[in-house]
């Protein structure tokens, strides 16, 4: 069995066709979905698979771009810039209780909550003593501090609703995009600063209400 993970949609069919004669069975993974291809697969079927991939990728990108438009992190970006960022996102679905980040552990990913609710916990003093500092819902960021300062995670974050959905962006890809397009870099970094400021204001107000 040969596995190929496709990063570029337009390479897919040619890659499959090129490999068709040389492998017994080919498993094409695209956007987390698997397409099986064997030596008997006809050219027409391959093109059908490619067409399905094109539609699936286009629909996913359009849907995700519409979701990202409503997220503050991307406020000020053009449609094209949003599409470029959307292409870097990987969707992850979580069940209640599933952990996204663990306090003290290094991480290279930024998470954007697009459905459901997560809670942010910090460990205080004794190892077993946890304090929930905030719940974050749709449109909120998780992991932005590690993205900026490359330090360990400042808190543990876990899903508190079933079917919580997050979009994941890896730091390397994110930084490469920001360097390649400085407008994206400026806008996103400014928005991260605004988000951190808003979270600090929330915490100040919460602690003042005790």
């Amino acid at each position, binding site marked *: 069995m040969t596995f190929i993970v496709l990063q570029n949609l337009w390479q897919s069919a040619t890659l499959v066709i090129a490999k068709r004669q040389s492998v017994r069975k080919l498993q094409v993974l695209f956007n987390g979905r698997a397409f099986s291809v064997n030596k008997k697969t006809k050219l027409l079927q391959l093109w059908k698979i490619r067409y399905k991939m094109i539609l699936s990728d286009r629909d996913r990108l359009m849907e995700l771009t519409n979701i990202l*438009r*409503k*997220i*503050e992190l991307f*406020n*000020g970006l053009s449609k094209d810039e949003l599409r470029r960022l959307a292409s870097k996102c990987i969707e992850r679905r979580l069940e209640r209780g599933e952990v996204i980040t663990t306090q003290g552990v290094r991480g290279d990913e930024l998470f954007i909550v697009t459905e459901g*609710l997560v*809670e*942010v916990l910090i460990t205080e003093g004794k190892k077993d003593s946890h304090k*929930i*500092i*905030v*719940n*974050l*819902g*749709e*449109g*909120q960021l998780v992991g932005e501090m590690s993205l900026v300062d490359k330090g360990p995670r400042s808190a543990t974050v876990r899903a*508190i*609703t079933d079917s919580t959905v997050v979009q994941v962006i890896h730091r390397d890809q994110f930084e490469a995009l920001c360097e390649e397009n400085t407008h994206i870099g400026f806008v996103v970094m400014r928005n991260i600063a*605004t988000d951190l400021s*808003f*979270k600090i*204001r*929330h915490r100040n*107000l*919460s*602690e003042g*209400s*005790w």
Partner: protein
Amino acid sequence: MAVFKVSYVVMGGEHPGAIVNLDHKPIIGELITLGDHAFEVVEVLTLVPPRGDFHYIHATIRRLSPPQD
């Protein structure tokens, strides 16, 4: 397309509150749920000016369901 980024602060500090995006500005008396808990909005403040389509709102809420722990 206005997006309201809302910080819900719970009176008495018995709950950490939440930050969520809404498609409307919270109003006093509105009932909301955060996870398994129900709350009522008692105060709405705009601390910082809006930018683009985004409005930044701080809302104080009061817990309606009794604490479970």
